[in-house]
């Protein structure tokens, strides 16, 4: 009797407590996610949906003038992924290993290494914009004062240097993140392996290459996948520093910026193209979704049991 009362009370409780959370997720995540797919298959004028369009929006996306924009943006996203992945991951492992080895002051250095991650990309972007300002910034001021005037470039203003500069700023803000993930990975490795290798006379370099690095594979999987997703949804930093058309002259354009322009219009064209924008959204979703799924599968296969 009492047990039944408890069960009934629990059932009521479960419904009351689950409903608000599930309703919020359903309304503001699940339903929009499903409708976003359908948008790509309709004609649109402004924010008004028109007739069924089949694959027309996709075919327009892959023809002049959108095709060239798309390919340039895609190339930038790929470059950014490769750039961020190689530099950020290598540095992350390097720093994590340094933190792992140095116990005295570890807490301080760990706190400092992660510090930039808490900054908004808007703040990071603007701060670096002033640091790299060609006339008033300390970087070029320094180069001029040591007579290396040829190095005092218009970092964010030239098509050649703009994208690498953005990758560098991204590095400053993000490198603490993989560092912490790799450090957690290193700390999770049983010290028995390392000690056994040391007794067998392995050098520190051998221990890192043969034991620590292979056992870091699960952390590597996480970092790679998150970097991949981040690189293909790259928006805030290029928007803050280059505007919605990826200035200078489209040198920092990305797929997410193009998606934003098509969805909400831009300085150059006030009219938006929701159909083509949604088609691009589906394409980005496929790239990120398939890339992350198959990437994770492949990377997991490389992980060794420890």
């Amino acid at each position, binding site marked *: 009797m009492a047990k039944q009362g408890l069960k009934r009370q629990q059932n009521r409780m479960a419904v009351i407590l689950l409903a608000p959370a599930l309703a919020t997720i359903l309304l503001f995540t699940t339903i*929009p996610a499903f409708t976003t797919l359908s948008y790509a298959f309709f004609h649109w004028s402004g924010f008004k949906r028109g007739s069924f369009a089949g694959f027309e929006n996709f075919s327009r996306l892959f023809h002049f003038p959108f095709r060239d924009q798309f390919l340039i943006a895609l190339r930038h996203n790929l470059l950014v992924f490769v750039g961020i992945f190689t530099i950020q991951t290598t540095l992350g492992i390097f720093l994590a290993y340094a933190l792992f080895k140095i116990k005295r002051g570890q807490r301080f250095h760990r706190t400092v290494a992660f510090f930039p991650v808490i900054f908004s990309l808007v703040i990071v972007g603007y701060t670096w914009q002033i640091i790299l300002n060609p006339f*008033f910034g300390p970087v070029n001021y320094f180069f001029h004062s040591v007579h290396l005037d040829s190095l005092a470039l218009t970092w964010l203003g030239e098509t050649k240097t703009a994208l690498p500069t953005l990758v560098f700023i991204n590095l400053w803000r993000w490198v603490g993140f993989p560092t912490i993930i790799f450090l957690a990975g290193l700390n999770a490795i049983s010290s028995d392996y390392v000690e056994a290798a040391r007794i067998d006379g392995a050098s520190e370099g051998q221990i890192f290459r043969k034991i620590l690095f292979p056992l870091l594979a699960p952390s590597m999987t996480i970092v790679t996948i998150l970097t991949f997703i981040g690189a293909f949804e790259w928006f805030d930093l290029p928007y803050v520093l280059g505007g919605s058309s990826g200035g200078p002259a489209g040198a920092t354009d990305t797929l997410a910026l193009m998606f934003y322009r098509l969805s909400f219009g831009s300085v150059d064209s006030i009219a938006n193209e929701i159909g083509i924008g949604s088609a691009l959204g589906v394409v980005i979703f496929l790239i990120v979704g398939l890339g992350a799924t198959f990437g994770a599968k492949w990377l997991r296969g490389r992980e060794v049991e420890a």
Partner: protein
Amino acid sequence: MIRLIGSKVFWRGILIFNAVSVLLPVFFLINSSLRSSVDFAKNPMALAWHPYWQNFSQVWQNGDFANFLKNSLIITVGSLVVILAFGVGAGFVLGRYQFRGQNFILGFILTAMLIPAKLMILPLFIQLKWMHLLDSHLGLILVYASGSLPAAIFILSGFFRALPADLDNAARIDGASEGQMIRKVLIPLVRPGLAIVTIYAAIPIWNDFFLPLVFLQTPAKKTIMQGLTIFFGEYGSQWGVLFAGLMIASLPLIALYLVLSEQFIKGLTAGAVKG
């Protein structure tokens, strides 16, 4: 060379180099916010021996800035209230009860976790417009809550599950109702989980740029991160004022980070840890 890499001195050197590269731009930001614009234009690297506080009062007198801060605070706190209230409830049920359909609900939440928020911005925009929640703080709060809830529920249900089962029974035998048991016994015990969820959700919301850019149109409703872009347009080359603006916008998180760095690191990497 190989000897050098094996030595502790080398790795300590790496850490010191990293600390300098991290802290130098931050120091530059703080230092420059305390110098007059004229002074800065003369030499961007000089130290602020005589702090020029007028930059800060000038930012503050620009009434918009305080308003942007207030908007960010309302949106962040509002979202947190919804996330914690709804998340604790759902986390408790999923962590402590067993019932039919539980796996279905877990799958539903897990799927929602994998959907990239940026790509459903269009339907959300139209949906919010239709619900009269566009250009409103409440609309933004609900979208943020929806975005953070799945991970929050997972984190919290893990914490609830880890508590010993006898706790519930002891409280029930003492005559506590389910609601009392949750409030008085369980919630105090999952406090570390609440801290992780708070940081996990609050920082990206405070720092977010994209959703307010799309959803808020009335200038008076905009958040601090958007306010900064307006601010940078308005104050052109008044460097001191711009730096003071950047300082004020980042100060809340810097201050909190100095006190709670451990929780920050746990909170911000919570999504990356295998569940």
